């Protein structure tokens, strides 16, 4: 139990360090990536490429293990079906992402770092998630 929590803490620490180093907590860098018809900023492409290069290779080996190293079972999304709900949710997320340039990971790091934009965004994000639970439960 304790080692599982330490692993989660360590994973979160690496994740947060990666978000901070890569520049993803700056919402204008993200908006630059989305601005394909204007001042395009490719930084996010390099971040995503670095991350997916690691997961695409490492996940193959990890998922060959019979179970996670610290016990329990692998908890992977069971569905691999593209349905309207998935696409609608992704589109709504994308519009919000394009309005501000924040997605959940970077904006939470931004909150901890005292960015005023993040402090306004995060409460609304939690309300949005709560509302989705109430009115759009699967």
């Amino acid at each position, binding site marked *: 139990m304790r*080692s599982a929590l330490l*692993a*989660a*803490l360590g*994973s*979160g*620490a690496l*994740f*947060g*360090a*990666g*978000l901070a*180093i*890569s520049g993803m*907590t*700056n919402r204008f860098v993200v908006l630059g990536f989305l*601005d394909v018809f204007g001042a395009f900023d490719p930084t996010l492409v*390099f*971040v*995503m490429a*670095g*991350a*997916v*290069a*690691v*997961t*695409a290779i*490492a996940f193959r080996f990890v998922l060959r293990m019979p179970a996670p190293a*610290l016990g329990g079972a692998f908890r992977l999304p069971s569905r*691999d079906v*593209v349905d309207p*709900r*998935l*696409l*609608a*949710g*992704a589109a*709504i*997320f994308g*519009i919000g*992402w*394009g*309005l*501000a340039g924040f997605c*959940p990971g970077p904006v*939470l*790091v931004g909150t901890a*770092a*005292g*960015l*005023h*934009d993040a402090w*306004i965004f995060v409460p*609304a*994000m939690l309300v*949005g*998630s*709560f509302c*989705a*639970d109430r009115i759009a439960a699967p």
Partner: protein
Amino acid sequence: MNTVINAVLGGILIGLAATLLLWSIGRIAGISGIVNGIAGSPRGDRAWRVAFLAGMMIVGAVVLQFAPAPPRIQTGATPLLLTAGFLVGFGTRVGNGCTSGHGVCGLGRLSWRSAAAVATFMAAGMATVYVMRHLPGSAS
């Protein structure tokens, strides 16, 4: 340091973080899913989520003091930030994931579902930025 090197290095760290979480406790490092699960999950399923988010926020904020940090002052209009936040929270809940869960982890698993989600939210984000920045009469 160079922006490209920082970006690739940061991305590799994010990929290693996701690998560590899957290897150790078998979980997908999707931030929206980890946050959403805090409220709705059974008791034994909460502590790792809190530990992950605490590590991410504390270490991220500390590292940001030594990296090119974004402006701390408010740069966006409050109604815009509130609307954007609401849509991100709502959309990631309905669509079961964000840039980390569908992007970093889903693409790493070669999931078609995640690939469709990534293509959709990137297209929607690009269309939104186009409307906001380049249509006649747009705000910025």
